[in-house]
């Protein structure tokens, strides 16, 4: 088996994997709607809308440290 053939198989396998991941991602986003921290994905738009330095972060880094 030459290098070109090997590359062919590698290409098909990797592309299928990436397609699976992408569709898995779409499925996950639209069925769960929330991430593992319990935030609705759409809440993250607020990162732009409420971005003053004293606005409360959508998910603060400090939450992690308290846990």
């Amino acid at each position, binding site marked *: 088996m030459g*290098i*070109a053939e090997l*590359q062919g198989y590698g290409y098909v396998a*990797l592309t299928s994997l*990436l397609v699976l991941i992408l569709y*898995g*991602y779409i499925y996950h986003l639209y069925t769960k709607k929330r*991430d*593992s921290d319990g935030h609705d994905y759409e809440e993250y738009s607020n990162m732009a809308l409420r971005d003053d330095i004293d606005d409360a972060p959508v*998910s603060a880094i400090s939450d992690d440290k308290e846990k």
Partner: protein
Amino acid sequence: MFHWLEKHPFFFAVGVFLVISFAGLIEVVPSFADKSRPVIGTKPYSTLELAGRHVYIKNSCNACHSQLIRPFKSETDRYGHYSLSGEYAYDRPFLWGSKRTGPDLHRVGNYRTTDWHENHMLNPPSVVAGSIMPAYPWMFTNKANVDTAYAEQLTIAQFFSVPYNKAVPMKDGSTKVVKMGSTLADAHALALAEAKVIAADMKNQDVKDAVAAGNIPEIVALIAYLNSLK
């Protein structure tokens, strides 16, 4: 599972990098394995031709002229045989261009002469009525950079095994040797010998005098390069 990446910038960056490098690995890398071999009849550039190629690049001729004949009847009628990959084996960088404001030049050496180029570079509309190409009078006074051309020859011979001073097969079954100087003075002598052949066909007295005095104007080098494009 997916969400995790969004909060871990380092792994996110790794993920992005993997996804964007995939295409390059598949598309670009394989062709390097069997790198383009020269077709029969393709030979390395001589010192003067290479100096001329540098003049071509210095003035961005490639901004308006392509060196790539596509396999269509209209193009082969106009410019000659369509381009082959192996013909570019000694082109570093490639000069295919991306815009044809002027005509293709890949085989310009087949149908234009030294005399034509001399008049054309000095005043394009005098040769091609209606031409919008600017004139390049400074090429008649600026000196061609033979030192750099020699340095490049040495570099490509050393790093990429370009066959200088070796027999290269030609289309008619014969072989040809493109010489490279063993010292800088030698390289200058080789370039000057070539320049004298070109200058003999030219009319501009200043250029002829310069070459006779051992100096090579840019125009002579450029014409040597253009004549080599066949």
